[in-house]
């Protein structure tokens, strides 16, 4: 395998931008029409994703220790798309045809290198998928409750038909009948429960096909598909430090799951949860948080409103409000929300003396189609 030569040929193709994945998928669908139905109607984001993934793989191809776990995760996750071992050679053939098409100096040696490399990648992915064969490729889950909490936020309770194991703070991808082949990531807002229910917090993004449908079209009794859980915002169980949780918007969901975990499994510790919103009306989960606060003396919930003055909640950016209640130097800190909110909060906390190593974050951004190769479910 001549890795430098492969990198050079990949760079040549990459210079053609969107044309390359466009050509690749067209080639794939023409040679194997049966693969078309695994993809959404619009391939725009899909094309970006494929190339980003290939680029990541190429940049790590000489660091197998790092690459293999990533490929294994990809292989496991691709089961939910209906990817079978038989599809891998098809993809490989189209990939080679594409690279050849965009490389005028393509030769047999390069073809052999790429064939070998792709073979390795496919083997790892197929192997991981086979190992996960005792798990379902996806879980069907029925919507058992759907509450519109604000103009654009809904809280859903869904019940998987077979048990779905996950860690609090992790996310699962989901696909609904109204928006086929569009998988989006959502964090359950509870730790696994004996009745198997998952609580999902969904904010309808303007123009977001899946989130809007989940908020406005989904009804009790609808069945959705859930993919295997991934994510890194899980509670550090080796630590028994008190917790500081800072949530913006629906970033509340994974943090509420951590609260639930402490409540169910301990270890006992103090938990301060700050919830930020633009306006007083945007606190979509106020009643349930209030209930939790009543039930658990170790939990303190502080809402903060950034734009509306004169509200009963504290006024100010969430990061600012958090610092006013500090110091937090002895806490494990978890922050989830939009990128600006996270950056601001983390900067302030680090500035105030919280070690960076004790801060974990989860970015909630519009359209989170898939995890990165590092396994992060958000950009």
């Amino acid at each position, binding site marked *: 395998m001549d890795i430098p030569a492969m990198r050079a040929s990949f760079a040549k193709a990459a210079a053609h931008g969107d044309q390359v994945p*466009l*050509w690749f998928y*067209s080639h794939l669908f*023409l*040679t*194997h029409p049966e693969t078309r139905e695994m993809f959404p109607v619009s391939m725009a984001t899909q094309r970006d994703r494929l190339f980003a993934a290939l680029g990541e793989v190429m940049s790590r191809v000489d660091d197998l220790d790092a690459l293999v776990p990533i490929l294994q995760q990809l292989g496991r996750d691709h089961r939910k798309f209906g990817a079978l071992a038989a599809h891998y050679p098809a993809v490989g053939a189209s990939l080679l*045809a594409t690279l050849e098409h965009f490389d005028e100096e393509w030769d047999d040696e390069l073809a052999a290198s790429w064939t070998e490399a792709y073979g390795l990648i496919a083997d790892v992915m197929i192997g991981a998928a086979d190992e996960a064969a005792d798990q379902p490729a996806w879980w069907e889950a029925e919507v058992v409750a759907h509450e519109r909490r604000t103009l654009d936020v809904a809280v859903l309770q869904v019940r998987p038909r077979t048990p779905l194991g996950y860690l609090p703070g992790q996310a699962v991808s989901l696909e609904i009948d109204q928006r086929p082949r569009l998988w989006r990531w959502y964090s359950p807002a509870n730790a696994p429960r004996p009745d198997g229910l998952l609580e999902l917090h969904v904010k309808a993004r303007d123009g977001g096909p899946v989130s*809007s449908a989940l908020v406005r079209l989904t009804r009790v009794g609808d069945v959705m598909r859930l993919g295997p859980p991934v994510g890194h915002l899980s509670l550090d169980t080796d630590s028994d430090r008190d917790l500081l949780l800072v949530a913006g918007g629906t970033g509340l969901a994974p943090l509420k799951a951590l609260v639930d975990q402490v409540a169910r499994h301990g270890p006992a510790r103090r938990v301060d949860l700050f919830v930020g919103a633009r306006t007083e009306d945007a606190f979509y989960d106020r009643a349930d948080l209030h209930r939790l606060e009543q039930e658990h003396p170790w939990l303190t919930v502080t809402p903060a409103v950034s734009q509306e003055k004169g509200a009963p909640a504290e006024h100010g950016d969430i990061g600012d409000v958090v610092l006013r209640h500090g110091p937090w130097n002895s806490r494990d800190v978890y922050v989830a929300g939009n990128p600006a909110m996270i950056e601001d909060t983390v900067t302030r906390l680090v500035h105030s003396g919280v070690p960076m190593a004790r801060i974990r974050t989860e970015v909630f951004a519009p359209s989170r189609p898939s995890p990165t190769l590092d396994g992060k479910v958000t950009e």
Partner: protein
Amino acid sequence: MTTSDTGSGYEAGPPTADDLRAVHFTPASMLHPGYTDREVDAVLARAADGLAQLTDENGRLARENVQLAEENARLRAQVQGLQEQVDAAAARPSPSDQAVGILATAQLTADEYVAEAEDFSRQMTSEARAQYEEQLTAAREKAGAIIQAAQEAGAAIRGNGIPVVSGGQPESEELQEQVAYLKAFSQACRVQLRSYLEALLSDVETEWGRAHPGALPTPPRGTRPQQLERGRPDVAFSANATADDTEPAGAVPASRSSS
């Protein structure tokens, strides 16, 4: 008998090739040259048994071999079929660049439509939200103002009977207007009632004077202007006072006893 060291002549089981090579038969006797027939028979019997056994074995193996060959051929065909499938899958005729180009264009068109639809939806929802938030803010401000005005009015009413409203708010202006109107109205009423009563009183006085001018006791007549003077602020009281004047002696004790 002198045979091989193994003495194979009498042993059971099929003779090995070495056994046979090592066989020595004992000369029978001087009279009968040759081998002892018993020993020869025994070896032959063993050899025959062994041969039969080997023949059987060979037949069985041959049959097995045929079966295996058949099995092998079947598997080979299967593998070939699979290989053909795999080859067909891997080396499906590569589509022409033209075909790829046409599909790519179609895909781009579809992508554009979807993007446009999403964009349209984005615009609609964000406009609707902006409108909603605007209306909500306006409604909230209006409600806030009304509540404030009401609170001020309430405070003023609690403070003293006459609302002293600081100007500026539309509601307080309205209140002020209403208060002024009520003041004017009460003044007008007061004036009208007063003139009516005065006229009535003078009428009564006239009629009463006409009816029994001589029977009128002097003291009440003298006190009437004073009573009227006191009664003026309260219309009802002065009316009663005038009525009382008709029966001054009887009315006073009666009202005392009833009180």
